[in-house]
C-alpha cells in the first residue's frame, strides 16, 4: 500500500469516476440521511429498503461481477437473521455482537456450501444452490424449538446500540444503524471491485477458461467472492432481525432468493448502484400492485423479468447509460 492510510484509501472514490457521478452519489447518501426528518412515517419502509439494498448488493458481487448465478442466496440472509435472533433470545442481545456473529455464521455456511457447489457449474450449480437453500429451509422448519418453525422467531429485542441509542418505535435508530452498515458495506464492495481481485472476478465472468490459462486459481477466487458475498448477505439478515425484531421462516425461502435477484436485475447488475435503484423500484411496484390481489404482483414481476431479458438487458441503469450515450452522440453531431 502507498503512504496514504488504509482509512483514507477506503474512503476515496475509485479513479476514473466522473465529477457528476460523484456529486450524484454524494447527494443520494445525504438525501437518505434526511428521510426520518422529512418523511418520518416512511422510516420503517426506508429501513426495509436499506436492508434489501445491502442484500442485493451482496448478490451483485456474485451475479454481476463474478458471473455466478445462484437461486439460493436467501440461505445466507436467513442464516444471518436466525443467528442474530437466536443469540438475542439465548445469549446476548447486543446489536453489534449479534450482527458480527450473523456475518460470521453466514460466511461459514457460504464457505462450506460454496466449497462444494463451486466445483460445478451450469445446471448442476443451479440445482445445488436450490437444494442447499431448500435443505436449510427444511431444517429451520423442523428445528422449531430453536427457530420457532413456521411461526418464526417472535419478540426478538436488542439492547441499545453502543449502549446509548435505543431501538425506538419510530424506527429512527434502526434506520440510521442500517444505513451506516450499508454505507460501510458499499465502500468495501466498491474498493474490492476496483482492486486487481475485483478485476480478476470480471475476468472470470467474461471467460473463465482464459483466466485459468493465465494462471488464475479460479476456484479459490470464486470461493473468496462467495464467502465475502455470504458475509454481507448475513449482515443484511442480521439487520433485518434487529430492526424488525422478528425472523420469519420466509427469510430462507426460494421466494426471497428470487425476489432479491429480480431487484438486482431491475436496477442493473454489475454496476454497484443497481441494487440502490432496483430495490426501491421493486418495493414501490409491490406496494402498488399487491394491494388488490397478489396475482397482480406476480404478473407485474413476471412482466418485469420478461421485458428486462427481452428488451432491456442491463436493467434501468443500463437503459440510462444507453440513453445518455445516444443523446451525447446526437449532441455532438
Amino acid at each position, binding site marked *: 500500500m502507498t503512504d496514504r492510510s488504509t482509512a483514507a484509501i477506503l474512503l476515496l472514490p475509485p479513479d476514473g469516476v466522473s465529477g457528476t457521478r460523484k456529486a450524484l452519489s454524494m447527494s443520494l447518501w445525504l438525501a437518505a440521511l434526511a428521510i426520518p426528518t422529512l418523511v418520518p412515517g416512511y422510516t420503517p419502509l426506508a429501513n426495509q429498503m436499506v436492508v434489501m439494498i445491502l442484500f442485493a448488493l451482496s448478490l451483485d458481487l456474485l451475479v454481476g461481477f463474478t458471473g455466478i448465478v445462484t437461486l439460493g442466496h436467501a440461505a445466507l440472509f436467513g442464516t444471518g437473521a436466525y443467528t442474530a435472533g437466536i443469540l438475542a433470545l439465548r445469549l446476548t442481545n447486543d446489536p453489534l455482537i449479534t450482527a458480527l456473529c450473523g456475518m460470521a455464521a453466514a460466511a461459514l455456511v457460504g464457505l462450506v456450501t460454496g466449497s*462444494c457447489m463451486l466445483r460445478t457449474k451450469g445446471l448442476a450449480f443451479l440445482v*445445488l444452490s*436450490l437444494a442447499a437453500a431448500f435443505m436449510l429451509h427444511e431444517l429451520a422448519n423442523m428445528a422449531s424449538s430453536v427457530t420457532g418453525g413456521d411461526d418464526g422467531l417472535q419478540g426478538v429485542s436488542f439492547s441499545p446500540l453502543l449502549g446509548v441509542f435505543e431501538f425506538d418505535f419510530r424506527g429512527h435508530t434502526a434506520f440510521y444503524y442500517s444505513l451506516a452498515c450499508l454505507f460501510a458495506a458499499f465502500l468495501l464492495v466498491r474498493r474490492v471491485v476496483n482492486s486487481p481481485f475485483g478485476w480478476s472476478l470480471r475476468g472470470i465472468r467474461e471467460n473463465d477458461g482464459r483466466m485459468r490459462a493465465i494462471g488464475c486459481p479460479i476456484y479459490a477466487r470464486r470461493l473468496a467472492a462467495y464467502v465475502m458475498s455470504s458475509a454481507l448477505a448475513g449482515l443484511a439478515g442480521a439487520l433485518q432481525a434487529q430492526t424488525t425484531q422478528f425472523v420469519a421462516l420466509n427469510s430462507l425461502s426460494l421466494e426471497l432468493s428470487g425476489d432479491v435477484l429480480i431487484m438486482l436485475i431491475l436496477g442493473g447488475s454489475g454496476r454497484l448502484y443497481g441494487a440502490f435503484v432496483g430495490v426501491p423500484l421493486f418495493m414501490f411496484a409491490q406496494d402498488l400492485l399487491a394491494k388488490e390481489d397478489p396475482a397482480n404482483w406476480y404478473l407485474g414481476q413476471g412482466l418485469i423479468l420478461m421485458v428486462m*431479458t427481452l428488451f432491456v438487458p442491463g436493467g434501468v441503469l443500463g437503459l440510462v447509460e444507453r440513453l445518455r450515450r445516444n443523446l451525447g452522440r446526437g449532441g455532438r453531431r
Partner: protein
Amino acid sequence: MEIKKSEWGGETMTAIVTVLFFGVAYGMILYLISVGLSVTMGLMGFVNLAHGVFAMLGGYAAVTLMNQTGMSLFAALPLACLAVTVVGFVLERTLYSRLYGRSELDQVLFSMGLILISMALVRLIWGPMAQPVQLPDYLKGQSLVGGIELPTYRFVLVAFGAAVIVALWVIFERTLFGARIRAAVDNRGMAQAIGIDTGRLFAVTFGLGTGLAALGGALGADVLAIAPNYPLHYIVYFMVVVAVGGLGSIRGPFIAALSIGLADTACKYLLPEMGSVFIFAFVFALLLWRPNGITGKR
C-alpha cells in the same frame, strides 16, 4: 405428495409394498413431467426453470374439462395434452427461441418471469385454492391386492404412465424423428450440416416435451396438487431429476425419477418429521460426485 397415515399397514411387508407402489407412481409422474425438460435442455442448452408451468397447465386443463363438461378422464387427458403442446410450440417459436445462445442468467430470469406470469394468470382464472380432482366412481376407493389396500386410481396411473413411457422410448430409439433428436443433442453443427432443420426440430421437440409434462401434471393431479404455486413448489424436484439424470438423455431421468420417487416416499414414511432433507442431502452429494448426472460424462 401426501400419504395418509391410515393407508399404511402395520406389518413390514405391507409397508414395503406400499412404499414401492406409491414411490413408483410418484416417480413415474416426475419422469413424465421432467423427461421433456431433459431432452430440450440437452438439445438447446436452454436453462428452462419454467417447465413445471406446462405440467400445471395440463393439470388445470384436464381438471376443468372433467369437472365442467363431465368429460371422462381418458378423453380429457389427450385433449389437455394436445392443448398444452400447442401452447408450448407457440411459446417456443415466439419467445424461447429469442433467447437461445443468451447467457444462463438471461435464461434463468426469463423462465422465472414465465413462472410468475403463469402463476398470476392461473390465480386470476381459477382462484388461489387447489383444484380437486373428481374421479369417476369406478376409479375411486381402494383395491385389495395380496391383502393390501391400495388406491385404485394409482394403478391406472402406473399402467397408463408405463404405456406412455414405452411409446416414448420406441419413438426416441426407433424412429427417424428420434434419431434426429439424438443426432442434434450429440452435435448440433453436424445435424445442421446433414440437412436437419434444427429450428423446426427444436420447436416440435419443445412442444412434445411440454405435452408430456401436461400429461404428467394431469395424470398426477392427486399426487402433485394442482394449485397456482405448482411451478415454484415442485421446481426443485423437476430440476433435480434432470440434473441427476443427465441432460439430453431419456433413460437417465427415468432412473433418477424412480429413485427420487421411491426415496422421497420412503423418507416421508419412515421419518415424516425429517421431510425431504435426506433426499436433498443425497442429491447434493451425488451431484458433487457426478456434476453431469448419472448418464453424463464425468
